[in-house]
């Protein structure tokens, strides 16, 4: 039998778990704000459609939140079980950041979630608004702390090494380390884009089933418009993020661009099969000099290639491809959201082919977000904390077969949950369309709920 490498298994397990986790926060972070928006629109206009949209999306939010919480609890054990070297070396820095996330974010969102979901008829309206706000706020604070930690792992600052252990010297520099502002902005926007495509896509699905009530159209327009506004911003901040990475982790950019040799006037590689044996790109399709122009703003600017980082660079093919998937998805999202805005504006309605395209695009945010994270995380290799700790040195001594068992359990459960999640989403969308809606003007949310259930 083939010898299994425990380090490899541990990495696969960690990657599996965090990939599964990020899917749900990337929806909930922004969906919380979308819900608050629906609620505020209702408060301002007293138009019942906003409340109907609110209740439908609250149910989906609750489902995503539950998936996020359970996979998040798994995450909080992963550092200890899989990477003991991580906490032993940089625990003095990672510890407080994680602790602050738990204390300031997790309890806040978990507690007020209960009030937001089940307290509608038990608390005054202002308190329900406040609870909705605090849940959205809590998820965003969560993202703040965890991204501070991840960015510190990418571009560490504000610490000194004593006897092989990192000690904090300046907390401001630790939190606001060089890549943090970019990563936070890009991630929050990614969440906005992910949630708005989900809202738009699922509404388009209902539209296709001739479920075109005002509430569905309101959610559809909100989703499409938000996506159309955020996507260009996302592409713009992505570009800034890349420039920042060039400054601090040039080897990552070399891998992203598939640039094996340092060059003046480096081409932009559209397609290629990076070959690590020959250290060349096979079947490359390139646009001359464009990469240099984008990254250095000069046609003949110098870009460092992989050869400049002997034994200190990430695997090229994975980073190269993940990057192309993210950017490609981003461009596709731009095309789809802008055409949808165009039709909604000119024709006041969707057209069928576009609606059909929007349904699978409901999950395009997931594709772009996960591939973006693969660029970031694989691009950091061989380091776990750049320049401080190598991934290989943080490994636990849990034997491979044991990790194999836990990994296969996780994979099975995730496969089941993912299937259940997606089928349930569409089932809920269909069911919401079948409910008879009596025309009524409710005095309270209570009446709205009864009309809905």
């Amino acid at each position, binding site marked *: 039998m083939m010898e299994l490498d425990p380090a490899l298994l541990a990495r696969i397990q960690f990657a599996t778990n965090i990939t599964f986790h990020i899917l749900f926060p990337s929806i909930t972070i922004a969906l919380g704000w979308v819900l608050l928006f629906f609620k505020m629109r209702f408060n301002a206009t007293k138009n019942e459609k906003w409340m109907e949209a609110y209740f439908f999306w*609250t*149910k989906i939010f*609750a*489902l995503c939140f*539950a*998936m996020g*919480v*359970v*996979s*998040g*609890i*798994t995450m*909080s*054990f992963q550092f*200890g*079980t899989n990477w*003991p070297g991580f*906490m*032993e070396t940089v*625990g*003095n820095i*990672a*510890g*407080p950041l*994680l*602790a*602050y996330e*738990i*204390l*300031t974010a*997790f*309890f*806040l969102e*978990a*507690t*007020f*979630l*209960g*009030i937001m*979901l*089940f*307290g*509608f008829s038990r*608390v005054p309206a202002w308190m329900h608004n406040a609870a909705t706000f605090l849940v959205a706020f809590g998820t965003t604070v969560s993202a703040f702390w965890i991204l501070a930690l991840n960015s510190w792992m990418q571009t560490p600052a504000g610490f000194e090494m004593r006897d092989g*252990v990192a*000690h*904090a010297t300046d907390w401001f520099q630790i939190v606001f380390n060089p890549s943090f502002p970019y990563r936070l902005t890009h991630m929050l926007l990614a969440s906005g884009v992910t949630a708005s495509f989900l809202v738009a896509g699922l509404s388009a699905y209902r539209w296709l089933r001739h479920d075109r009530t005002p509430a569905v159209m309101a959610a559809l327009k909100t989703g499409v418009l938000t996506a159309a506004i955020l996507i260009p911003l996302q592409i713009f901040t992505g570009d800034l993020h890349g420039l920042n990475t060039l400054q601090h982790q040039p080897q990552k950019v070399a891998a992203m661009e598939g640039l094996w040799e340092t060059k003046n006037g480096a081409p932009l590689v559209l397609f290629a099969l990076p070959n690590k044996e020959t250290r060349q790109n096979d079947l490359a399709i390139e646009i001359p000099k464009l990469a240099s122009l984008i990254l250095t703003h000069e046609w003949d600017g110098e870009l460092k290639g992989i050869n400049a980082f002997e034994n200190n660079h990430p695997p090229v093919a994975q980073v190269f491809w993940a990057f192309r998937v993210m950017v490609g998805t981003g461009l596709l999202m731009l095309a789809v959201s802008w055409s949808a805005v165009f039709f909604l504006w000119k024709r006041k309605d969707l057209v069928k082919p576009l609606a059909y395209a929007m349904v699978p695009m409901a999950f395009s945010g997931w594709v772009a977000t996960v591939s973006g994270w693969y660029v970031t995380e694989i691009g950091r290799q061989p380091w776990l904390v750049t320049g401080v700790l190598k991934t290989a040195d943080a490994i*636990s001594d849990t034997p491979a077969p*044991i990790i194999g*068992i*836990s990994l296969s*359990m996780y994979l099975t459960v995730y496969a089941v*949950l993912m299937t*259940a999640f997606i089928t*349930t989403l569409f*089932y*809920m969308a269909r069911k919401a369309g079948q409910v008879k809606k009596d025309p009524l003007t409710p005095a309270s949310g*209570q009446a709205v*709920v009864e009309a809905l*259930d």
Partner: protein
Amino acid sequence: MDIFSNGDWLPLSFAALMGLSMLIYAVLDGYDLGVGILMKRATNDEKDRMIGSIGPFWDANETWLVLGAGLLLVAFPKAHSIILSNLYLPVAIMLIGLMLRGVAFDFRAKAKTGHKNAWNNTFFAGSLITAVAQGYMLGAYILGFDKSIAAIAFSLMVGGCVAAGYCLIGACWLIMKTEGALQHKAIGWARVSLWGTMLAIALISISTPLVSERIFDKWFSFPNIVLLAPIPLVTATLVIALEVLLRQLPKPDDRWCWVPFVSTIGIFVLCFHGLAYSFYPYIVPDQLKITEAASAPESLMIILMGALVVLPVLISYTFLAYKIFHGKAKDLSYD
């Protein structure tokens, strides 16, 4: 006492904080895991009602586990890696259990009606797996991670005991939060699980000193034995009082429906106290002391300051949530 002069107070306060969150976790998630296990014995309508009683709380309850494990991780990284690598599989199994029940909670109401039963069963199974896995870990911890067959059998037994304890507190929660036929059932469940819990306490109390000589000396030397005596005595009194009370419930006007829940919390606190006393000053039994395992003081200080500011706020909005949802449970709806 030179605790303050030599800086040991910082790790010790973290150990206390961590212990406290584990205790709060055992009480809070204890009742909702217990409700999950008891669901197996309820009718479909009762199931909805039972879920309704824990709906607004379970998420925040589980967050105490994240805090407890998180404090172990951030304040005692060395202990965290010893404990978690020894408990690698039970932890993974517990996480799977938590995952299944957390999502089943939502899916059972949202998935196709035909699938509801399957999700109810998942909810039950997930709760049971979680409870047994946690008890197993407690057993393994008491034995200092001995890997013999006998140790595994012992840990499994503790797993069953912890499940019984959770059923007890879950049943008492239901006595408080429900009425009518379901409340009657819950009283019956409480009486059965009280026996299981008693057995559990006896088992752990007898075996712990037998396993560890250090604990044996700590318990049975003078004057400790006198000072410690109140713990088992008060526990026994509470158990008997609870049994007597359960026979008389429900009272007219539902008076005293909350007393079993509160007494059970008392039992949990006392047991926890006994355990904590036995293991102190070790964080990994007989291997690693609390003070040897701690992170750098600067980092602990930062966390402590944050915790002191945040904890009061956190506790007050937790109270707010319990106040909002006080009284008998209704079926869950998003209204």
